[in-house]
């Protein structure tokens, strides 16, 4: 293949990928762009609960990812498949599964109710849905980032008097930070944009994706421009910055 043909093809594909965004930017009625009622509340719901879901994913997913990266054990392949399961299940089906499990008649939902916790159509349910949607992405990315850290460096840290916990903070995490950051960014976008699971188990409180759907159904296309721009504004900076950083190996060392 000649270089000219390759460049033409590449530009063509890029153009096709970007065209809808360009079209959207051109179609936006910039002069009259206003959020409709409830849009800002949806934005708040999305940002606050996605941050909460992300915190849960990081706290729970990091040890799991590290364990998978560092230890060999029987059934590891099964473990890998189990982590992929929520990701491979269609979102709508996942929502149904969660409702059956956490809903008022489900095993956990029934028990939770006796403690006064509702796990459908509540903030807790919203966060739960996001965790299922995004956790596998974070775990897979973090695991491969941890695998990229030479275990010998961790061993050296131990022999230099650092406990395993300190070693994780001072050696493993700094060296895996780009990969873990990319995992975090993907999880952020996945959680923020999750529609299928949320629709089933947490129609309320309404975050941006469900509100977009409601606006489209109730009012029409004119009502989605503002919210969509808000979504892009909130969702994209983190993954774009981290994506570019990891590509450029912005692994500047600590010299100061």
């Amino acid at each position, binding site marked *: 293949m000649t270089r000219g043909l390759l460049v033409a093809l590449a530009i063509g594909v890029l153009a096709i990928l970007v065209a809808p965004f360009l079209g959207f930017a051109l179609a936006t009625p910039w002069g009259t762009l206003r959020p409709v009622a409830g849009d800002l509340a949806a934005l708040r719901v999305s940002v606050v609960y996605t941050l909460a879901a992300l915190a849960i994913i990081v706290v729970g997913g990091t040890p799991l990812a590290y364990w998978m990266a560092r230890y060999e054990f029987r059934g590891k392949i099964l473990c890998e498949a189990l982590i992929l399961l929520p990701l491979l299940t269609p979102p709508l089906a996942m929502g149904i599964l969660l409702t059956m499990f956490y809903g008022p008649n489900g095993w956990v939902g029934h028990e939770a109710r006796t403690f006064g916790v509702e796990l459908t159509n509540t903030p807790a349910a919203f966060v739960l849905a996001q965790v299922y949607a995004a956790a596998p992405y974070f775990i897979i990315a973090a695991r491969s980032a941890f695998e990229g850290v*030479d275990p*010998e*460096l961790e*061993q*050296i*840290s*131990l*022999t*230099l*008097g*650092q*406990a*395993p916990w300190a070693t994780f903070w*001072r*050696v493993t995490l*700094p*060296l895996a930070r780009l990969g873990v950051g990319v995992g975090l960014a993907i999880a952020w976008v996945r959680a923020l944009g999750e529609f299928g699971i949320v629709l089933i188990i947490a129609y309320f409180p309404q975050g941006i994706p469900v509100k977009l759907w409601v606006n489209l159904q109730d009012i029409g296309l004119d009502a989605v421009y503002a919210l969509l721009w808000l979504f892009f504004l909130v969702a994209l900076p983190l993954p774009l910055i981290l994506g570019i950083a990891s590509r450029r190996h912005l*692994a500047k*060392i*600590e*010299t100061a």
Partner: protein
Amino acid sequence: MTHVAYRLQRPLALDVALEITGFTVLLGLSGAGKTTLLKALAGLIPGVGTPYGGLPPQQRPVGYMPQGYALFPHLAVWRNVAFALSGSRSTRYARAIDLLGRVGLGDLAGRDPRTLSGGQMQRVALARALARKPELLLLDEPTNALDSTTRDRVLTELRALVNQLGVPALVATHDPHLAAIGDRVAVLAHGAIVQQDAPAAVFDHPATSHVARLVGFQNLWRADRVEPDGGGVVVAIGDVKLRLTPPSPLTAPAGLAIRARDVVLWPDRPPAAAGNLVTAKITELRREGLATRVVLNGPLALEASIDSRSDLGNLSIGERVIVRLSPERLRLFRWDSDTSV
């Protein structure tokens, strides 16, 4: 002197007892378990024994320097050295600069460790290991990552540095050159220390055929019989009988060896009184710098190393020569069943 006694099962079975004093070299073939023993002493591999048995690695007062040095790539040189230190940034920095000064690298504090030469990396790793004031240094193959031209210089410096620091070091290597410059050598084979002594003693009087191979005896035979004979012993290898002194309590199976440079060639007639003579045919001549390696075939397969500038410089392949194996230079030792001849 530090006495070490360690036993472990995984990843390979070791039952080791050795003394460490000054610069002690742990000599063994690759796969003998040198790295495993060092890691067990550092607490990175489970093992039972003294010293430090049962302590987690972060509580053992050892400085471990692995092969390739494992400098932290995300930290500048001085932060690598200061890694084990606590306190304010200025005290840690001052201490790191002091340690770097001691290894002669005071001006590289701010550098990215990945930009250093092999010898510089080694000294940074050493400074880092010293920061905790260890009782014992564990250095794994310190010359492996160096090119041959800098190796000898770095080695001599390392040796001098370790002595000057006054911290005993156990230095694992497969390299007899490194073993030769130590204060002491311990040879690891078959999961145990098979010989430990001053380098001169180990190099001149190997305790087993395995050690003889390791310290560079090129001519090694399995003795069929060993019989006392006056002030020495007579060793039979096939039809050849060789006398050696002094007497030895060893019996067959024993090994007999002589260094190639101790093999004496006589193109004409040897003095009448000389014993231990063998006639052999030259099958190969290899120039090795100022020496010539002479491969001989006869009742014994032999290699000799001679000065190319001597009268023997014009030997030719196919020529028959008389070989003398001096009774004082032959060595008798225990035979390891897995030694190939």
